[in-house]
């Protein structure tokens, strides 16, 4: 059974779905005008941010978002996640960290190659000079 309710202020059509929840559809005439986003806005409501995860993006959903539950409700691995920033090459060890060390090493080598390429292109006139002959051996 469909029940169409058109409210004057919001101009939306309501169509009930099987489970009993209501889906809002914007009427064909209604157009969402893009507004200039305020980038300087910082939400100062610390209570709300620490008690709820304010990520609700549905028009009709729990405001302001799912509540934060006590530790017991979350899985074990969540509190064992690695939150450290990526370690530089000097702190890594090939024996202990294995592939991560080699990955960092490769990144470092690529950075060095990139710097050398820049220098090479900057000093193009010196390319055939004897001092630049072995530049790839650095």
């Amino acid at each position, binding site marked *: 059974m469909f029940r169409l309710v058109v409210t004057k202020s919001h101009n939306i059509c309501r169509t009930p779905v099987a489970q009993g929840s209501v889906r*809002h559809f914007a009427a064909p005439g209604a157009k969402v005008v893009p*507004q200039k986003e305020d*980038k300087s*806005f*910082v939400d100062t409501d*610390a209570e709300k*941010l620490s008690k709820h995860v304010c*990520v609700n993006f549905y028009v009709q959903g729990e405001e302001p978002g799912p509540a934060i539950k006590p530790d017991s409700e979350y899985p074990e691995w969540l509190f064992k996640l690695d*939150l450290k920033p990526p370690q530089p090459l000097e702190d890594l060890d090939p024996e202990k960290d294995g592939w991560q060390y080699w990955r960092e090493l490769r990144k470092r080598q690529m950075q060095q190659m990139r710097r050398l390429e820049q220098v090479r292109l900057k000093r193009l006139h010196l390319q055939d000079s004897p001092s630049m002959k072995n530049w790839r051996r650095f």
Partner: protein
Amino acid sequence: MATKAATRVRKKEVVKVVHGALLRTHIKAGMASAAPPLGPQLGQRGVNVANFCKEFNKETGHIKPGVPLPTRINVKPDRSYDLEICSPTTSWLLKQAAGIRRGRQFYGEVAGKISVKHVYEIALIKSKDRALVGVPLEEICRKIIIQSRSIGIEVQKEDLDPELLKQFLAERSGTVAKQLAELAEKKAAKMLRTG
């Protein structure tokens, strides 16, 4: 120069597309329009732009307008398309959870604070995507943490303390205002120089 103009203008061969073209964009919920950049992107692939916008806005009617949604549009050779609307962008979700609108401006700056529980809830939302169907939640959480690092949002294991958070947010709003003022100044100076 006459020769330069002659060499630059070359006849572009019309390439006939045979395979289905995939279009990956972010479209704000309820705000699909025929204006660039979306209009030309769809037009080039031969999709009826007006129809697409109507359908997209209808599909996202239940989502708050203005939320950026990554969409994958698979255009088939007969000009019909498969529309796949994913959950909102992770960066938007992270910024909402931290209460900020702008990320960090330089390396090492802390733009916002979040706890692992926030990350878990965001991962739950993201896990409903078709692309992340078999992926364990732990892996999704790890990816979100890496992204939060790039935005400048600090993730902490303990729950957020409201007093400390309030202090941090007050400081942060001051810093953001200063940064934006500096940028506006630079822009004004540039306009004065060239104009």
